C-alpha cells in the first residue's frame, strides 16, 4: 500500500510539531523517519496510524483519503517503543487478539486462529513461548511478540515507533537485521521511526530526515550521505568536521585553501561552513594542502585506521580515517605531522544554517 501525505500540519498549543509535511511512501518499501527527539517524527507516525489528529492536511492510503477514518478502520499494524503487550494475556492470546476481536462474520474459527498464531510465532522464532506472559520475556522477545501481534491482522501498512529504542545495543543490532529479513520476506509497506542514524542507514530503503517539524531531505542512504541538501542533513548523518570559511568568487575559502563550487552563480559572498567526513581526506603536497596537522592518536580497527589530528598552529581535534592498507604504507606515528586536503567538502551558506543553529 502506498501512503501519500499532503500539506499536513499539527500544533500542540503554541508548539508547531509538524509544519506542512508532504511525503510519499512507496509500496513494499521500508521507509525511516529519522531525526533528533522532538523533530515530529513520532507525531507524524501516530497521525498516519490515526492515534492523533492533524490540524489540517490529508492522508491517503493507495489514493483513498483516510484522514477522517477511525484508528480501528485504518487496519494498520503498529509496534510501540515500549511493546504495549497486554500484560494479563499470555503470548498466544496477545498475538491472537486482533483476530478474536473481528466481527463474528469475518472471524476465523478457533483452529484457524491457532494455526495462524503458531505460524506467526514461528516467524518470530518464539513458538516455544506461547504460554508465557509478557513479564516473563526479555525486552527483545517482547518486541518480537509485539511485531507478531501487529502482523496477525495482515496489515497493509506496518508502523514501528522506535521499536528497538528500549533495548541494549547488542539485541538492537540483532533485531535490526532480523527486521530487515522479515520485511524482505513479507514485503509489507513499513514506516520506521528512529533517532539512530546507523539504524536508519542499515535497515531502510528510503530515509526521511526530519528536523523541527519539517522534512529536510528524502532519499536512500547513499544520496543522503553523498549529497546532503543542507547543513543539518550533512551533520546528522555520519560523522563530520566543520570548518568556518568564506565563499568568494564561486569558491569556498578556508585560510589559504580554496574549494571550487558547482553552480557558481548560485553563491553570494558570505561566510559559509564546509563539512568534511573523516574518510574523505587525502594526504596532500605542501602546495595544495588545506592545513598541516599533528597526529595525537592512532587507532587501528580492522579495515580502517582512525587518526585524531590537531591542525597547526591551532584548532579543534579532527578525526581522519584511512584504509588500514593505505595507512600502513605511510609510516604514521603519534606526534608526527602530515598535510591534509579534503576529497570532498559539503559547503552550506549562512541561510542554510539558521534552522540548524537553534
Amino acid at each position, binding site marked *: 500500500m502506498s501512503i501519500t501525505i499532503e500539506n499536513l500540519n499539527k500544533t500542540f498549543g503554541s508548539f508547531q510539531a509538524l509544519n506542512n509535511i508532504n511525503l510519499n511512501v512507496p509500496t513494499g518499501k521500508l521507509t525511516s523517519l529519522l531525526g533528533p527527539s522532538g523533530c515530529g517524527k513520532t507525531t507524524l507516525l501516530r497521525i498516519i*496510524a*490515526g*492515534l492523533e489528529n492533524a490540524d489540517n492536511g490529508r492522508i491517503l492510503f493507495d489514493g483513498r483519503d483516510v484522514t477522517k477514518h477511525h*484508528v*480501528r478502520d*485504518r*487496519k*494498520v*499494524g*503498529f509496534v*510501540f517503543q*515500549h511493546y*504495549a*503487550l*497486554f*500484560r*494479563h*494475556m499470555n503470548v498466544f492470546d496477545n498475538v491472537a*487478539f*486482533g483476530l478474536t*476481536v*473481528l466481527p463474528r462474520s469475518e472471524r476465523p474459527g478457533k483452529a484457524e486462529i491457532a494455526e495462524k498464531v503458531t505460524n506467526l510465532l514461528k516467524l518470530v522464532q518464539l513458538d516455544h513461548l506461547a504460554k508465557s506472559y509478557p*513479564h*516473563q*520475556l526479555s525486552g527483545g522477545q517482547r518486541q518480537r511478540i509485539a511485531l507478531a*501481534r*501487529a502482523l*496477525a*491482522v495482515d496489515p497493509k501498512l506496518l508502523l514501528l515507533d522506535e521499536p528497538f529504542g528500549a533495548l541494549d545495543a547488542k539485541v538492537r543490532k540483532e533485531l535490526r537485521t532480523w527486521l530487515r529479513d522479515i520485511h524482505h520476506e513479507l514485503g509489507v509497506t513499513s514506516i520506521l521511526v528512529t533517532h539512530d542514524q546507523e539504524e536508519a542507514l542499515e535497515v531502510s530503503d528510503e530515509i526521511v530526515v526530519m528536523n523541527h517539524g519539517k522534512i529536510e531531505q528524502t532519499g536512500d542512504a547513499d544520496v543522503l550521505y553523498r549529497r546532503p541538501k543542507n547543513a543539518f542533513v550533512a551533520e546528522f548523518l555520519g560523522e563530520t568536521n566543520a570548518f568556518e570559511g568564506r565563499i568568494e568568487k564561486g569558491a569556498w575559502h578556508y585560510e589559504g585553501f580554496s574549494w571550487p563550487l558547482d553552480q557558481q552563480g548560485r553563491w553570494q559572498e558570505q561566510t559559509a561552513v564546509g563539512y568534511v567526513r573523516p574518510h574523505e581526506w587525502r594526504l596532500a603536497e605542501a602546495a595544495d594542502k588545506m592545513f598541516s596537522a599533528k597526529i595525537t592518536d592512532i587507532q587501528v580497527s580492522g579495515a580502517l585506521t582512525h587518526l585524531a589530528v590537531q591542525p597547526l598552529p591551532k584548532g579543534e581535534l579532527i578525526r581522519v580515517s584511512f584504509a588500514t592498507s593505505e595507512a600502513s604504507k605511510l609510516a604514521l606515528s603519534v606526534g608526527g605531522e602530515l598535510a591534509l586536503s579534503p576529497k570532498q567538502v559539503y559547503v552550506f551558506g549562512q541561510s542554510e544554517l539558521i534552522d540548524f543553529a537553534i
Partner: protein
Amino acid sequence: MSMKTNPNITEPRALQWLLIGVALLFLLLMLVVPLAAVFFEALKGGWDLYVASLVDAEAKSAIRLTLITAAIVVPVNAILGVAMAWLLTRFDFRGKQMLTTLLDLPFSVSPVVAGLMFVLLFGAHTAFGGWLESQGIQVIFAIPGIILATLFVTFPFVARELIPLMQSQGDSEEQAALILGASGWQMFWRVTLPNIKWALIYGIILTNARSMGEFGAVSVVSGHIRGETNTVPLLVEILYNEYQFVGAFALSSILALLAIATLVLQDIVNRIQARKLAAAERKEA
C-alpha cells in the same frame, strides 16, 4: 522482628522491647479491648438474647435498609468511579485539575455537612424538594435521601484506587487494542478491566464498608423513623440512648464483624496484588 537482623544497625535489645511494648499496649487498649468489649457486652445476656435482639422487627428493618443501600450504592459508585478514573487519566481537558480536587470533596467535608446539603436541596420546604413532593416523591426522611447521602460520601473510593494505577499503566495497551481493530467495548472488557481488576475490587470493598457504616450524613437525612429509615449505625445509637445495651451492642457486633471481614478481604486482595507486582518486577529486572 527477625533473628537475622544485623546487630550493627539495630538499637539495644532493651530499647527494642520497650518500643514494641508501648506499641502493643496502645494497640491492646485502643483496638483489641474495645472490640472485645463490643462482643462481650453483646453476649452478656447469653446467646439467646443476642439472637433475639438481632431478629427484633426494628433490627431486621435496619439491617435490610443497610443492605439495600449498599446494594444500590456499591454498583453505582463502582461504575461512576471507573468512569471518573477513565476521564481523569485518559483525557486532557480544561478544568481537569479542578475536577480532580473536587473528587476529594466528599472526603474533606464533614459528613454532617454533606447530609445538610441534601436537606437544603431536597427538603420539603425548598422549591425543588417541594415540587418533588407534589409529584409524590419524598427524598429527605426517606430511603432515596439515605441512598443519595451514602452515594455522596462513598463516591471517591473507587476512583481514588484506580487513578494512580491507570496513570502508571498508561494508555498504550488500549491504543494497541484499538489499532488491532477492537471496538470500545472490546477494549474495555478485554484490556482495561483485567488490568485494573484488583484495584477495582479493593475500591469496592472500601465503598461497601463505608456505605454500611456511614453515620453522619445518613443521620441528617434519615429522620430516624423507626422500622423505616433507620440504618444499622443509626439504630445502634438510638438503642444505646434508650439503655438497650444488649440490642445496641448486638448490632454493633454485626458492624464490627463487617469491619473484620473487610480487613481480611483487603489483606487478601493486597497480597494478590503484591504477588503479581513482585512477579512482574522480578522479570522486569
